[in-house]
């Protein structure tokens, strides 16, 4: 059974380690924050200028001066800190933020990612994505395996204008967990009751499949 968006987030939360600084992109990545085990300390950075982001505010407590990079109203945790955009990207570019989780429209087998532009159709801009993917040591993509037309978003080569080169390390989709290796995509895990065959059929790129592929554990 394919995962829903919350389950994708839940699976990604397993990748987080104690004492990590993490930047979560808009969409599915934002949901990751809901699944952090209490046993580990994580601080969330948002590139518009906050470290130590907390949950959404209670109704009536929204502050227009306190938003995340998705422009959503947020709160801060004890120990939080606020700063300007140059300092924020110093944290990102300088690799002080250790993990970036973001969405994508396409990922290629060399780790290229496209997520900012559909020529002639959609040009919202890259926001902080280009800085994030060019910098973070570890980049995990959270996305659906296929687009609305049912086409694979996991490709031999990106067809859309790319956001960054050779940067994605791992992908978690509704169907599978994939690792980007020097030889291409390696299938690590499959969603509960989703077969390797189904994943292969939904994937335009080749998959390296070694031995038994276990189901994701939650």
């Amino acid at each position: 059974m394919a995962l829903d968006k919350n389950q994708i987030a839940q699976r990604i939360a397993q990748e987080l380690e104690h004492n990590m600084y993490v930047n979560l992109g808009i969409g599915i990545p934002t949901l990751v924050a809901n699944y952090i085990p209490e046993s580990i300390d994580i601080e969330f950075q948002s590139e518009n200028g906050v470290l130590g982001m907390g949950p959404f505010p209670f109704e009536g407590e929204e502050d227009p001066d306190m938003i995340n990079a998705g422009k959503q109203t947020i709160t801060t945790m004890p120990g939080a800190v606020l700063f300007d955009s140059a300092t924020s990207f110093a944290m990102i570019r300088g690799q002080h933020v250790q993990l970036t989780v973001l969405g994508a429209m396409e990922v290629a087998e060399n780790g290229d990612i496209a997520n900012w532009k559909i020529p002639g159709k959609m040009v919202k801009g890259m926001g902080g994505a280009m800085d994030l993917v060019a910098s973070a040591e570890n980049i995990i993509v959270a996305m659906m395996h296929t687009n609305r037309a049912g086409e694979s978003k996991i490709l031999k080569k990106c067809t859309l204008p790319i956001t960054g080169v050779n940067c994605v390390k791992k992908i978690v989709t509704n169907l599978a967990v994939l690792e980007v290796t020097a030889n291409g995509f390696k299938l690590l895990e499959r969603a509960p009751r989703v077969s390797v065959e189904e994943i292969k059929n939904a994937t335009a790129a080749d998959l390296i499949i070694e031995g038994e592929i276990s189901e994701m554990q939650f």
Partner: protein
Amino acid sequence: MINKVVKSIEEAIAGVRSDMIFMVGGFGLSGIPENCIAELSKKDIFSLTCISNNAGVDDFGLGLLLQRKQIKKMISSYVGENAEFERQMLSGELEVDLIPQGSLAERCRAGGSGIPAFFTPAGYGTEVAEGKEVREFNGKPHILESALTADFAFVKACKGDTAGNLIYKGTARNFNPLMAMAGKITVAEVEELVPAGELDPNQIHTPGIFVQRIIQGKKYEKRIEQRTVRKNQ
């Protein structure tokens, strides 16, 4: 103490002319200089180049200038959530230069700091790198980005003093301190203006030397773009 206070919003924006380059602080609608933008939208000033991370929404922030087609070119990192903007861009009426957000921030800081250019990894291998010098450092390719400056920078702070010193609140800080550095004339509007000497010198975010004019804004709407809440328990 050098006094930076101007008496009216008209005086605050005096000197802005058609064809100029101007910067506007803020991220989304958070921390934008509402009063300066509103005043600009009343003037017959056109063909402006605007450097701002975002482009406002249809009826607020920079959207007001877009509605009147006062802006010829936007230099931004993210311009979603604005139908009129999208229409002008796709029709070719509006020129748009999209820049990675971190490069935009750093280019403004560089402009204010006398650093004409710097290398960054952001955008390497993408459209953004086209025409730009590429150089490897520690085995990693970087591109050369140049400084940004502006004829005017409009910024917004929570508190300011008569010497032009500014303190921001929350994530409304964002691009404001960087653009304040990069404006030939930097106009700061603040929610609260106090006499010089009232702010703790250790706690000032933008030193007054970067600010040429300061004014207390008449009123602030401070619109929220994405109101997200959790249920009261």
